[in-house]
């Protein structure tokens, strides 16, 4: 049975989405006329500032394009649905945001993205632009702690990009921006659950099968299967399962603080996300872990997938100041 979407010809869905975005946020974003998959912040890039380039596949909105703006990312390279962008737009992003202080590439840890961004970094090097790369690897379900470098980058991207964006906007040198980005990544822990699959605009077919009473734990944000399938449980039980895994790994002591992100994968409602947040809060309170800030909503989606992810970032003074740093992006603001 075909899924239903509000699209036109799927061949042009990305181009049309971008046209709509540019029309809605003309004060925040501009698109390169010769390459519409290059979206640059109108305010943000400047001389002597490290340029922050993020990017990846479409289908995760507001990630990536929604986080382009002053105080966060300077540019985003936009790929096809769930596919890394090719080297060209990434290279163009680097050129557009280069202020002479180097460029930081940040994106999720996926084989395709790594190849394309690395090729773009080689091209940028030929333009004498120094590029550093920090991959996001926050998904605790996708590899054990001793192989953290193999983990996927998922919704925790939001925290990690925000921290890096703050460092760059504070005019820190590239070594410091990279250091802060790596720390943010190391201290972010995410796990998710999928209830129903998503479908690509071109196929209109659910991209995996799941039973009416099942959930997929440890999912990927591209509709790829997670790491285990279980019977669907209550919100509290699911939240406990996720937090048990995260808290087992996160080295938080009583009195420490975290930031919380309860993220919808697309079709899961705010009502459900807030029910989950209630349980997150209860568990953290029981462990004496304080909460500096909570974000709930659509931050890193997977088209229309039903499901959610919980991310915790273990904070210190530096990360608090970076998360609190003002930003003004197309789809996200910290006043």
């Amino acid at each position: 049975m075909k899924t239903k979407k509000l699209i036109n010809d799927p061949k042009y869905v990305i181009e049309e989405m971008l046209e709509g975005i540019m029309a809605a946020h003309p004060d925040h974003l501009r698109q390169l006329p010769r390459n519409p998959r290059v979206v640059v912040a109108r305010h943000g890039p400047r001389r002597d500032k490290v340029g922050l380039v993020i990017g990846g596949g479409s289908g995760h909105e507001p990630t990536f394009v929604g986080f382009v703006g002053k105080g966060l990312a300077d540019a985003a390279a936009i790929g096809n649905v769930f596919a890394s962008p090719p080297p060209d737009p990434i290279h163009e992003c680097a050129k557009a945001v280069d202020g002479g202080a180097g460029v930081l590439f940040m994106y999720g840890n996926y084989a395709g993205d790594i190849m394309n961004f690395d090729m773009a970094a080689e091209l940028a090097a030929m333009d004498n632009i120094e590029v550093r790369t920090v991959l996001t690897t926050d998904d605790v379900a996708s590899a054990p702690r001793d192989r953290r470098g193999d983990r996927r980058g998922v919704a925790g991207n939001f925290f990690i990009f925000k921290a890096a964006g703050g460092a760059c906007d504070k005019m820190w040198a590239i070594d410091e921006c990279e250091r802060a980005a790596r720390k943010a990544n190391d201290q972010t822990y995410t796990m998710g659950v999928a209830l129903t699959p998503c479908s690509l605009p071109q196929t209109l077919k659910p991209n995996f099968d799941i039973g009416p009473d099942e959930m997929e734990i440890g999912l990927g944000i591209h509709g790829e299967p997670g790491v285990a399938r279980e019977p669907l449980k209550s919100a509290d039980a699911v939240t406990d399962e996720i937090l048990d895994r995260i808290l087992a790994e996160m080295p938080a002591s009583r009195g420490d603080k975290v930031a919380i992100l309860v993220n919808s994968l697309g079709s899961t409602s705010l009502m459900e996300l807030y029910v989950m947040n209630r349980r997150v809060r209860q568990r953290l309170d029981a462990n004496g872990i304080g909460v500096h800030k909570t974000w709930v909503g659509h931050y890193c989606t997977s088209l229309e997938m039903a499901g959610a992810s919980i991310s915790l970032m273990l904070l210190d003074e530096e990360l608090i100041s970076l998360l609190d740093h003002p930003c003004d992006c197309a789809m996200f603001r910290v006043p």
Partner: protein
Amino acid sequence: MSDITTKDLITMFVGIAAAIEAEKGRLSELDGVIGDADHGVTMSIGFSAVNEALSRLDQGSADPATVLSTSAKAFLNAVGATSGPLYATAFIRAAAAIKGRPVLDRDAVVDMVSAMVKGIRDRGKADRGDKTMIDAWLPAAEAAEAARIAGRDLSECLDAALFAAQAGAEATKSMVASKGRASRLGERAIGHIDPGAASAVVILGAIERTLGHRS
């Protein structure tokens, strides 16, 4: 059998695009089981872009190497993803292997296939048994080389390559993936054919049909 011309190579890419189009649903389904279900779509977008770029080439003045380098650029710019860098590198290396030749004989075509496979390995860093397209391409290149050494003609070399690719793709069913999205699934990937290996078979089938059986 006559040598392969620029026109023949363009016909080959038309054939590849048509074959991918016919199989894209199946390829996306294979990818849905262990990946993110976009492989068929990605390959279709890529090879459509190749055909569009090649249709704008001046066939009279372009040599075979130009067909390949044009294809590399068009594919990569349309697609990105994992297939983009891998096939773009394959086509660029193929172009380098046959640079300057106005037509291609059997040896040039076999060299081309070997160069493509080396390009994929260099870029993707996968090896035999990793459950990737290499599990189809590497046996194909080896079989073509073996057939060449045994004195077979182009058609037989390509037949051997296709046969080896089919067996290689089938063999991926029993493998655990160590690259790409499926590498996070552990044992759950077993029993499922790798979509990249499956599409390699589709591509080689089209190459065998168009270059191996011209009138």
